[in-house]
């Protein structure tokens, strides 16, 4: 019986070890990437945030109605000219695929508009946008840095407010559309 017990100990060690090795502790849920290939440009992917339903936070001084309720954003001079927003980000199929932050500010260092898109199963992108708007209210920008799936990519992006015209009762007021056109630069070691 001692031999059976020892065999059981070894079996227990092997079984738990194998389970820890082969069964992933973390398994992120993935949505299929919806990508258009633009000839001589790269891959285009469109994300959007429905407004107001996907807006998590507006961080700005002196808001009459804070979002979320209970937010205590500092009212000091340091952050007087800055605005931070958080959103859930959706793909073209309107499924939530990540979260994003948008920071806009004007200060001695100049005006800035930036996005960080965090897509848990894929990686993150850091977008630097131009301060001025193009015709149609579009703002252009560029990919500054990316992680994981986006680490080897370079390219451009745009943001645009698109008002809802469906007239449906439950329709959002509109959406902020982010159009990313990235291409692989190759050659850089992945992280």
């Amino acid at each position, binding site marked *: *019986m*001692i031999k*059976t*017990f*020892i*065999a*059981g*100990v*070894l*079996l*227990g*060690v092997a079984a*738990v*070890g194998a389970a820890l090795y082969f069964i*992933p*502790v*973390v398994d*992120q*849920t*993935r*949505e299929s990437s919806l990508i258009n290939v633009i000839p001589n440009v790269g891959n285009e992917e469109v994300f959007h945030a429905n407004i107001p339903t*996907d*807006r*998590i*936070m507006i*961080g700005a001084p002196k808001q009459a109605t804070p979002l*979320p*309720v*209970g*937010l*205590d954003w500092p009212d*000091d001079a*340091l*952050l007087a000219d*800055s605005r931070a927003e*958080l959103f*859930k980000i959706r793909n073209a199929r309107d499924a*939530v695929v*990540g*979260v994003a*932050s948008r*920071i806009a*500010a004007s*200060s*001695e*260092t100049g005006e*800035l508009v*930036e996005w*960080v898109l*965090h*897509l*848990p*199963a894929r990686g*993150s992108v*850091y977008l630097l946008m131009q301060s001025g708007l193009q015709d149609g209210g579009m703002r252009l920008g560029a990919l*500054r840095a990316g992680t994981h799936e986006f680490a080897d990519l370079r390219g451009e992006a745009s943001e645009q407010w698109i008002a809802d015209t469906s007239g449906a009762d439950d329709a959002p007021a509109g959406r902020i559309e982010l159009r990313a056109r990235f291409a692989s630069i190759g*050659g*850089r*070691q992945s*992280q």
Partner: protein
Amino acid sequence: MKYLAALLVGMFCGAAALAVVLYYNPFVVSNNLSPLSVTDSEVVHLSYSAAASDSFIYTNDGESQISPHPAKVLQLWEPTVRQTSARVTQLFDGRGSAAGFGVKFSSASERTSLLDGEILVDSVWHIYLPERGSLFIEQTENYWNYARDIVVPAYRSSGNNWRGIWLGNITHGPGALGTAWVAGGNGQFAGIDMEAVEALSAKAYSVADGPVGVSGEITVELQRRERAQSLSSEVQPVPQGQ
């Protein structure tokens, strides 16, 4: 029948023995020394409180141990973001003065391996310092030592809490020496790639509320780095006035 019982008891003992070995794994050591602590370059120190209630907002799936703050903040319940948390918090400089704010997104990493003593989290910081500029920090964090030294003892405590003094780096990569990668965005940091390390300093942890006496510190080394080669490459000083 008694042989089956011996086998089952043996398997249980074997599984328990492996768990104990992994928990007390002597090859997993605390990482208290930052690779940036010996740098000659200028560094930026930013600190924040890791308590959710001290953040402007903290949100997750709403079912995790740490409750979202404020209570009515939109929660990340969708399947693709269920293992993600978002924090917006004020950042303080080395003298304790307000320096700006940061947004941190953290997601459980699929590269987590309990066999290797790695509870990994992929996170990014989006930081804005009004008087200096903006930064993007990419890092993989390892919470193994934090869990082993603080969280598990808190659960084992009769009072369901932990009190003590704990300091450790949580940055685990992607830099070769366990540093985070930093991309400068605007202002003084525009166009510069740098490295950083994030550390946690814990004094109290509650099973009910999570970290209640925990502060974080981000150290950014202001020295240009080649990203592909990371620490192995020649470094160049940041140009004056940038």
